[in-house]
């Protein structure tokens, strides 16, 4: 088109373009600064822990060095050569499968349900009160019923993990759908996108940031409840060895389990955040 408005292309560029990398970020110090700051506090905690426990004859809490050795043995063996040696991968995989399996089940139910509750007033009136009453019930309280309904073993574990992840996904999805800017519906309908077509073209994309927050919280909760989930008589899993080691007074194994859950939960959250930043780079709150 030759009649292009030249004024526009000559306009001063006032747009806030995607943020450029900070200028001095190439220097090693500034790149390592944040990780360094992040390890100061845990480092100090370990030192306090060490001073309080090391060399004490009757300390019930093992010093950090014992825990480190136990963790090495749990992962690679060669130190204690007992029932726990070189079994970490088995337990980690078992827990990972329950966390992600339970999370996937929760997602497949909570997401569509949240979209429906958020969008359709009748469904909201029917289901929302019940859900609000069920929501405060702790996952721990469900343990006995879960074991009756699903029996001893992994099925109960999946159920409990799923329950932990369910509400954050559901609540955030409902919130996302309910808070879509009314203006966007008007914009869509005056452009010729009306009725159910708005669901996929407006409601779903507009609620994605909130849904994503729900996923992140849900996955976090799945890790939080993994120990309860594995109190259901399963033989493997990080939660299972924590409960078993506790009965055997192997506190260093208990702490190993805690450390591994923490690290695994952290890594799985980082993965979700990175994915979210890619998928939601249009959103000012994620980009």
């Amino acid at each position, binding site marked *: 088109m030759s009649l292009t408005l030249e004024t526009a292309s000559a306009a001063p560029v006032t747009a806030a*373009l995607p943020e450029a990398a900070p200028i001095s970020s190439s220097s090693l110090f500034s790149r390592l600064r944040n990780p360094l700051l992040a390890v100061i506090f845990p480092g100090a905690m370990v030192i306090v822990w060490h001073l309080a426990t090391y060399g004490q004859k009757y300390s019930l809490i093992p010093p950090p060095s014992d825990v480190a050795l136990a963790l090495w043995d749990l992962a690679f063996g060669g130190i204690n050569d007992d029932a726990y040696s070189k079994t970490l991968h088995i337990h980690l995989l078992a827990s990972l499968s329950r966390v992600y399996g339970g999370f996937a089940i929760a997602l497949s139910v909570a997401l569509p349900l949240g979209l429906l509750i958020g969008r359709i007033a009748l469904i909201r009136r029917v289901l929302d009160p019940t859900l609000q009453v069920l929501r405060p019930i702790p996952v721990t309280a469900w343990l006995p019923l879960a074991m009756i309904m699903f029996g001893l073993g992994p099925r109960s574990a999946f159920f409990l993990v799923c329950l932990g992840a369910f509400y954050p996904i559901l609540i955030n999805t409902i919130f996302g759908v309910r808070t879509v800017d009314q203006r966007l519906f*008007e914009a869509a309908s005056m452009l010729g996108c009306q009725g159910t077509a708005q669901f996929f073209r407006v409601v779903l994309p507009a609620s994605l940031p909130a849904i994503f927050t729900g996923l992140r919280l849900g996955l976090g909760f799945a890790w939080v409840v993994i120990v309860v989930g594995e109190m259901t008589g399963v033989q493997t899993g990080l939660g299972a060895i924590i409960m078993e080691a506790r009965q055997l007074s192997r506190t260093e194994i208990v702490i190993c389990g805690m450390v591994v859950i923490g690290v695994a939960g952290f890594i799985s959250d980082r993965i979700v955040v990175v994915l979210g930043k890619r998928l939601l780079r249009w959103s*000012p709150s994620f*980009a």
Partner: protein
Amino acid sequence: MREGANPILALRGVSKQFELQGERIEALRDANLRVRPGEFVCLIGASGCGKSTLLRIVAGFETATRGQALMWDRPITGPGPERGMVFQDYGLFPWLTVRANIGFGPSARGRPAQEVKETVERFITMVGLQRFADAYPHQLSGGMKQRVAIARVLANEAEIVLMDEPFGALDAMTRERLQDELLEIWQRTRLTVLFVTHSIEEAIFLGDRIMVMSPGPGRIDTEFPVDLPRPRDVVAADFNDLRRELSLKLHSDHARKAA
């Protein structure tokens, strides 16, 4: 383009009432308006005069309590692509790029992908946003967002563009630039524009006709034809005369309401 006596848009005795906390509000009383194809009509008035309500009835977002709103002699029953709306707060889809925002209408209406692509390129060029075609709305300035919003309704084959204080949130320089651009697009495409503003100068600069509205209850009060030649000079004597006349009219309405 159809010409002659046949108006593209006609309002006949349109009234709108709604309830607000148990109180009956008369937002618009007995509004009559005929807009010819290709005309640029401005609605001006203080807040509460019903100018936005009138526009939203034409857009199909609200229904009239009494009276009729007709487009090409057919009653308006809901929003439609032939009546494109440009909002003051843009109403762009934040998850779509500039390109996809402009293509939203055509692709939602099932146009073939190749056709959508060509249309989008044409209108991106028209509003001069080629360099920002793949940017997201949050990366754009207000003026650029409003260019996207205008391109979006034009790309969707709107016959009449409804603009609700579209430049009200922009700084003075950007506003003037966009006014010029809008006039150029309007003259080139022979669009029909219904433009709500509270700026007297903007109304005189843009409009073929200015409908002055007054509040309590909201109604169309007077009509001012603007017979100044285009492009208009905002510091010319006749421009100023009209500005004074309109200003007096608006302030007397205001004073009467306050009394």
